[in-house]
């Protein structure tokens, strides 16, 4: 029983990270109907930037926020330069651009920072070396990273719900034509959405890196869990993505420990995806899209 509780709690910790990446995917999907296959490699690249800044002598939290800002800028730049011309391209072309980005970011991570597996520091593992919280069930990093992802998710929610800019971004995603008519700069809203998604991905990368260690292919598996999370929650529903993320985290940890073993955790994500598509393609919170002929 104690083991199960432990699995659930650490599932919630990694679930927060899947939730963040899934949220980044869903934000871009909602606005442009593109699935960003490069989301994982972009986050990995950001994490490498953070590691470089820390090695350059910056304190952790300054490096953290600098990385978030840099990632935001990279996201905006990618949208303005590469994706704007692809807005009306056929699906194959837009997927191709994302795959190209994936290859480039993956190669750049290896090129600039090397292929050896690196340790990434955690701000929550102090020199004291205390065993953990909640009776030793949760490591300090798990608790800290869950707190960081929850604060970030809350911040994103408040931003979209209670600021004019957030409202404008929602409007631009929901109905670009009418938004333009009321004076919203739709193009820039999309670019900001991309920046925000890249920044969220960066935070997720920095939070998972101390657990899985950092190398250029770090996010490959995590992106898969995020896909499963986004589909489980409903591909166009941000709240669904967050709930799906935590659910997939728990499924992954409990299922990996008791059902299929740690070797088949990725296949478990694949099974979740297949099950969603067979049983309820619109996901838990998504609505069925009815097209007009």
């Amino acid at each position, binding site marked *: 029983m104690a083991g199960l509780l432990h699995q659930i709690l650490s599932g919630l910790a990694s679930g927060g990270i899947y939730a963040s990446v899934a949220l980044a995917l869903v934000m871009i999907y909602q606005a442009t109907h593109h699935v960003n296959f490069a989301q994982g490699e972009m986050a990995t690249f950001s994490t490498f930037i953070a590691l470089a800044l820390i090695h350059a002598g910056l304190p952790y939290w300054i490096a953290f926020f600098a990385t978030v800002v840099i990632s935001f800028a990279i996201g905006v730049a990618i949208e303005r330069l590469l994706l704007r011309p692809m807005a009306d391209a056929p699906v194959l072309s837009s997927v191709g651009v994302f795959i190209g980005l994936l290859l480039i970011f993956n190669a750049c991570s290896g090129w600039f920072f090397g292929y050896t597996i690196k340790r990434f520091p955690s701000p929550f593992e102090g020199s004291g070396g205390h065993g953990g919280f909640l009776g030793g069930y949760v490591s300090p990093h798990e608790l800290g990273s869950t707190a960081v992802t929850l604060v970030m998710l809350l911040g994103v929610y408040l931003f979209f719900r209670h600021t004019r800019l957030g409202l404008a971004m929602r409007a631009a995603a929901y109905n670009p034509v009418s938004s333009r008519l009321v004076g919203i700069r739709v193009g820039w809203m999309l670019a900001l959405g991309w920046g925000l998604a890249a920044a969220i991905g960066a935070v997720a990368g920095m939070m998972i890196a101390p657990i899985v260690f950092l190398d250029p292919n770090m996010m490959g598996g995590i992106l898969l869990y995020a896909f*499963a999370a986004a589909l489980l929650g409903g591909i166009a529903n941000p709240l669904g993505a967050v709930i799906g993320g935590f659910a997939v985290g728990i499924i992954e940890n409990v299922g990996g420990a008791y059902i299929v073993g740690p070797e088949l955790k990725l296949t478990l994500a694949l099974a979740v995806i297949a099950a969603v598509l067979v049983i309820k393609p619109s996901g838990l919170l998504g609505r069925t899209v009815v097209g007009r002929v």
Partner: protein
Amino acid sequence: MRRALLPLLGALVLLAPVAFASDYHLFQLTLAVAYAIAILGLNLVSGYNGQVSLGHGAFYAIGAYLSAVLMNNYGVPYWATIPVSALVCAAFGFAVGLPALRLGGLYLALVTFALAVAVPQVLKVNALGPWTGGAQGIVLDKPDAPFGLPISSDQWLYLFSLAIAAVLFLLARNLVRGRIGRAMMAVRDHALAAEAMGVPIAMLKTRTFAISAMYTGIAGAIGAIAVAFVAPDSFDVFLSIYLFAGLVVGGVGSLLGPVFGALFVQFIPNLAQSVSKSAPGAVYGVILIAFLYFMPDGVAGALHRGVAAWTQRRAASLPDEETRGALAADAPIPTPSEGGKARVG
């Protein structure tokens, strides 16, 4: 006369390496033939049917592993493993396509990407160790030329794969030029109109995906026989991505495209590797994006356009009706860049 000349010339170009190339180069060309078959399979579903798949490396892996296990554990002769790989991959493709292709849009891309990420892990599972050999993989023997032919095993395997490829390309050509091919392209260009015309969209897409998986499974089997070694890490998600890049660079929705795509996949990494370890990935990425912006119909499309412009100029200068008719019969199949602007799904 003219129609017979071109295939003859093509056959000569394809057979020439047997006489002139070294065994190592022939081995590389054999792999290129395998990639051409794999990309042709991908082209059937992504190019002609408009359903993006990012996981064909998974079918390549399954074909390769089936062939290797049958040869290694059950002593099946290498040529007899190919039909088995083909059938199993077709069935598996059907099973994957069934849930994913009911829905339009990007679901197939998502599911196949997930499949490609998950497959290497499955191949390493301990429970399958007696068959797959775990992370170490399986080492095979290279088959010798049969009937006491005086050629090396690399020469034989090149001819062997070339013969299979010829049959598969011919079948694909007949498929896409017939009724089913037209239905496939109709679904790509305007799914709704195709459905109104009575095309069973979901079934057609799923069957196309099964055939496509079959092609790629055959390619994997040939690859395993030629390399004489399979291991989980040679079939990671990047194999699928390279096949996709080869498709775009070679030419989407063209039968000749996979040939160029395969040469790209096989030879560009070798060239780029000499620059740096990460260069192949970056080069692939940059070339892929550059093609999408500047030459979305790929090498084959550019070639078609060049030939079409040339023959048009010639036809204009030739008043002979018969020649003009013969030239018109060579007209290229429209590529998605001309006909496929509509968003698919």
